[in-house]
């Protein structure tokens, strides 16, 4: 007979400090990743007769091979992280916000609208970026506040509600695409302000300024690879959000209210909290940060808008938030791994001219192992001996 029960301690560290148990938990997760790579290797060899080690080398090279690739990885990591952090307060409140996809999209639409309509007004870049950020935040917040109001007022199911808001956002994008179509007939928006780059995230040091530097000085390369890169702003914005959210959830009165409301609305009422207010306020924040994610995606990365701007990140972010147990710093690690897998898998597919689906298979296997390892961390399985006989009748 097999007994499955909730794990209290790892046998190795019975009754020891919590961090030791946490440590072994992370060991199991690492082991799961290693095992998944082995399984992927066997599968790759069986299907394509390619050397798995070579395949993994290509994967690593595809993500970290050049400065440009590293920055592309950082950019995608920042975007996924931003959305995950946005989901954290809602999920901590047990408000199942499945609508990040839509919140990102409306944030993106707002950004694109600003770029298109204000791009020609010669507004100074910092001011324009601020306006764009503000409108994207407002748009995302509206998308978050609507299901929250309904939940607070009529106790509607937020899972269905936020999910359906996604489709409204996608339809809204489809409505704007022909309006902003460029070039005519392409049915895409194309690069917005391709000539002026108005509203695009700038690098902190322009190419001209970098060219003036002494090419032999020790700092030149360093500067070129950091402040000379256009995606540094994405990373900085997200670091700020991560720090803010960490302290907001852990130390602030609002964070305390979120924790209590998430655990039990009755306790929250008992503690004289205004539950409705907390729900609406938290979802406003959640939507706002996801909306800002749309700003990062449009102004900081794609410079265009399409129904695929969010690209499923609103859903992947749910996995990130859950695996990290809403700790924003752990989210950094998990989004880094997921984005690495995503980009690495694409590199494999193009290098060995495999179908794009292979990358999905690899990603799927690795995720399966990571999620599966949580079971072994939280539960223990005991095999009990001979006592398995049926009742004599």
């Amino acid at each position, binding site marked *: *007979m097999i*007994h499955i*029960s*909730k*794990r*209290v*301690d790892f046998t190795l560290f019975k009754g020891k400090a919590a961090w030791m148990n946490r440590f072994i938990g992370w060991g199991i997760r690492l082991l799961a990743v290693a095992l998944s790579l082995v399984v992927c290797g066997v599968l790759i060899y069986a299907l394509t007769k390619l050397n798995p080690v070579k395949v993994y080398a290509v994967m690593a090279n595809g993500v970290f091979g050049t400065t440009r690739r590293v920055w592309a990885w950082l950019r995608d990591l920042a975007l996924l992280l931003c959305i995950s952090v946005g989901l954290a307060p809602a999920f901590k409140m047990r408000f199942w916000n499945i609508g990040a996809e839509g919140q990102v999209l409306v944030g993106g639409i707002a950004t694109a609208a600003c770029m298109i309509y204000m791009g020609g007004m010669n507004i100074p870049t910092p001011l324009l970026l601020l306006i764009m950020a503000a409108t994207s935040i407002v748009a995302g917040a509206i998308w978050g506040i609507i299901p929250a109001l309904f939940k607070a007022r009529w106790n509607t199911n937020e899972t269905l509600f936020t999910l359906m808001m996604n489709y409204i956002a996608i339809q809204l994008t489809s409505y704007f695409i022909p309006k902003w179509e460029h070039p005519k007939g392409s049915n895409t928006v194309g690069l917005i302000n391709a000539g002026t780059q108005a509203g695009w995230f700038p690098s902190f040091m322009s190419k001209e300024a970098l060219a003036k530097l002494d090419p032999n000085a020790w700092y030149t390369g360093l500067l070129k690879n950091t402040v000379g890169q256009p995606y540094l702003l994405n990373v900085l914005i997200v670091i700020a959000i991560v720090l803010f959210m960490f*302290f907001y959830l852990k*130390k*602030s*009165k*609002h964070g*305390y*209210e979120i*924790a*209590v409301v998430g*655990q*039990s609305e*009755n*306790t929250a*009422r*008992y*503690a*004289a*909290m*205004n539950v409705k207010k907390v729900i609406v306020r938290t979802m406003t924040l959640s939507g706002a940060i996801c909306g800002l994610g749309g700003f990062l995606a449009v102004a900081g990365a794609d410079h265009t808008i399409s129904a695929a701007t969010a690209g499923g990140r609103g859903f992947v972010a749910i996995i990130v938030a859950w695996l990290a147990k809403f700790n924003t710093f752990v989210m950094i690690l998990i989004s880094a791994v997921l984005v690495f897998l995503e980009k690495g898998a694409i590199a494999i597919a193009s290098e060995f001219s495999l179908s794009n689906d292979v990358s999905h298979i690899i990603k799927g296997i690795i995720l399966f192992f990571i999620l599966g390892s949580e079971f072994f961390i939280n539960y223990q399985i005991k095999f*009990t001996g001979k*006592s*398995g*006989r*049926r*009742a*004599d*009748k």
Partner: protein
Amino acid sequence: MEEKTNVTAEKKKVTIPRGDPAVEMIGITKTFGSIVANSSVSLSIYHGEILSLLGENGSGKTTLMNMLSGIYFPDAGTIKVNGKAVSIRSPKDAYDLHIGMIHQHFKLVGLLTAAENIMLGLKGKFVLDLKSVRKAVRDICEKYGFDIDPDKKVYDMSVSEKQTLEIVKVLYRGADILILDEPTAVLTPQETQRLFGIIRNMKADGKSIVIITHKLHEVMAVSDRVAVLRKGVYIGDLATKDTNPQQLTDMMVGRAVSLNIERPEPENIRECLKVENLSVVDSEGVTKLQDVSFTAYGGEILGVAGVSGSGQKELLEAVAGLQPAKPGSSIVFTDMDGKTSSLIGKTPMEIKKLGVHLAFVPEDRLGMGLVGDLDIADNMLIRTYTEGNSVFVDMKRPRKLAQEIVKEFEVVTPGITTPVRKLSGGNVQKVLVGREISGNPSLMMSAYAVRGLDINTSYTIYRLMNEQKKRGAAVIYVGEDLDVLLELCDRILVLCAGRISGIVDGRKTTKEEVGLMMTHLPSEEAQA
């Protein structure tokens, strides 16, 4: 102190010969994670006896019996039924062995009738044969003296009727060994007497009955033999006629305890809470309280008695601002300085802002009073987190308070950063009560404050209530154990179906009087 077991009690352990045992449990062990619920317990049940399984909450009584009825499966040990080793892996296996259990929380379908509930889950022909079920039910009722209408819907039944139905259900399925888990917890004294009559009838018919309980006078009243468990360990068994409550308590607790509850004379009485014509209707439109009027005085303990669900919860919640009252209700609070304020129509936040110091220990400790996943220190914050102008919470004071409470009330915990859901029931209650009295309340309300607690912790709670009374606070104590209410409270308010059927003097009334008032309103009596 724990090691100093009452040796005399153990030496008196006797096994009463009664032929071959119907059930033998040998060396049964069951663990949940790191918690050992039963440690190598051996227990026999004989044909035609009434056995009381006595032990404090958390001593593993229910777990042990759940293994007999197929809810749990033992980690180690053997179960023999009529001398044959068996493996009971589901309630169905248990029924096949003629073992049936009546759980504390009834397993009935509200929308179905009694007869339908009885045949639920049984194999049979494609077409329901309700006629023969009805007849069988009537036969069983006649035989043992039950009173049940097979066609009554469960949602129309009182708690006592539901319990009767559960027993009939188990008998219908052919059980010879009946296990009743705390059967009297929900009954009035009169209903309890009726149940005991039925149990005796079943015994006369040759059935074995096991009653899980922690109430000593019931053990003495109904059982032939009593087996005692303590902290998952089998302590021993005694013939009921050879023992007395004090000895059983000592066996149960592991050392000598005094069973007297202190009741100091009220001093410096002042009006604290005046409730007039309070009516409460819940969100489904059901009247929960109707025209309730009473006054609670500082310096006394006002007990509230009633069958569970008679409006006790709504009464306390209405005072705390958690339950809206109907127009025309009035709740006026007078604090220790004589300042009065009306609490009607106020939210908890507004009540707090009025400066009203009320402590409230709700019935649902982890679902309302505390947050299970937060640690002890974080739970201290619940009442005070809004204090100060900072955006951030001040963790210094709650940590200090948590440490004080852990020390003063001897809370067993690895530390103040342990989530409260990991604490045992008694320690959870100590944390909650400790926090509530830390605010020096003028009004202390508690609902079922000792439910599920061991004797020691229960007496600690009584002492704390008395301390609040001596401090001059008005204490409202909602209880279910009439013996305790009669010993602890100065006055007892009796609720019956949301109305007050009377307020009696705790020093003069009797259990029977209060029991009668719990089920009858004075006007009904006059009509009868």
